[in-house]
């Protein structure tokens, strides 16, 4: 990820509904690169991030111990 965060103070720009969805899906909204103007995080971005995380998880558990 970019070292230079686009927003000061770790502020995430996202609608309340996207923020709630992130909590519901257990993803850290601050770690998502938003696709909206200026990097605004949409519900769609949150779902995609949750999917990615799940895939990583599944790959992890699929891999032989």
């Amino acid at each position, binding site marked *: 990820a970019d070292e230079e965060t*686009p*927003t*000061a*103070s770790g*502020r995430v*720009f*996202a*609608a*309340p509904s996207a*923020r*709630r969805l992130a*909590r*519901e899906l257990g993803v850290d909204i601050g770690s998502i690169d938003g696709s*909206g*103007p*200026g*990097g*605004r*995080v949409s519900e769609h971005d949150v779902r995609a991030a949750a999917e990615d995380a799940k895939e990583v998880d599944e790959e992890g558990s699929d891999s032989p111990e």
Partner: protein
Amino acid sequence: MVVGDVTTGTDVLIIGAGPGGYVAAIRAGQLDLDVTLVEKEAYGGTCLNHGCIPSKALISATDVAHDASTAEEMGIHADPAVDLAGMVSWKDDVVDQLTSGVEKLCKANGVNLVEGRAEFAGENTVRVAHAGEGQGSETIEFEHAIVATGSRPMAIPNFEFDGERIISSREALALDAVPESLVVVGAGYIGMELSTVFAKLGTDVTVVEMLDSALPAYEDDVARVVKSRAEELGIDFHFGEGASEWVESGDGITIKTEDEDGEISEFGAEKALVAVGREPVTDTLNLDAIGLATDEGGFLETDDRARTDVENVFAVGDVAGEPMLAHKGMKEGEVAVEVIAGEPSALDYQSVPAAVFTDPEIGTVGMTEEEAEEAGFSTVVGEMPMRASGRALTLGESDGFVRVVADDDAGFILGAQIVAPEASELIAELGLAVEMGATLEDVAATIHTHPTLGEAVMEAVENARDRAIHTLNR
């Protein structure tokens, strides 16, 4: 167990039926939780009975009379007579409608209502003393408790409230005659709102403020608009002075103030209204019984789920800290209950808007320019003076301005400061903008109805983009 005690149980016990508590209770009922709400005095708490609602009722009513009496320029000649007792009784009717509404809404949502004073008796119990002698008490066991006991006016040394000479906002909102003169100690929002009301009713108002400006919580240029208007209304300001003592004198009292050099001034008045702040009501709850301590100011610290340090105990509203505003408490009440119900709720809002119902009003949300810079944003600011607003001119009220603060990179709107007629309403759009992560362009591209004060919001945003139409861009 004391003889005569009844023990009942509840899933969610809420202490205090102010905005924090009653909203929590109604939401709990909606979520099918077994909920009990204990209130010792009156449904609606400070806000409905002695705060937000009565103050706004008197402000609005006073304005009706005052506006008509100062509208000669508009071709209106009127000399209204105000019967304050009548106005206060109308205000009481408004309060009654709302508090009985709260009671009905609680019942309709299945909330168990208990009248009495609660204190913690053990880790999972409160004792409720019913009002009136011999009315007994009851013990209630709870799974979760929400403390929503609100705040009370702060007194200053030598100025104990007696309800007659030295009054708090509560008595000021229930006077039956207009005082000839009034010293108001404290130029915060409550002091300024009430000073304005009484000045418009004809009282000789003197405001004494320890700090060096009116509404010291606000930026200078915002506060200045209100202060200038207040001075036009005849309010006399004394800054840098603290009220030190008072004595009876003739029909009234004399209030002494002291500045930092120890210089004494004296002000004669019929009464003194002390409005220097409010303190949380947590000392009467026997918090020890649940092993909970307050911070130095008496507030309960909470996390982003409105939880205190004790796992099953939540705190909402004024007891949970600044800003001590009704709508902050309501949101905390909702979140506390939703968290108890297992919903993914949190106090993750960007900002609590605030309004001051002076003349003109103030409405703010999010960060000031200075706060945004401190937070590391490079900022861009846009302003629109109300004297360039067509709607403001048609209302005959063109003092003030709208300011928006945005981040200079992506244009995200970070905050707004409005001092203008209806600022309390105008701030709503910018509140949504801040929560949504809207940009200057988003608000600028939204068509705003003509002629409205809300167009000034759009113009301020356009000004930040050097594209305002009705004001010069610089």
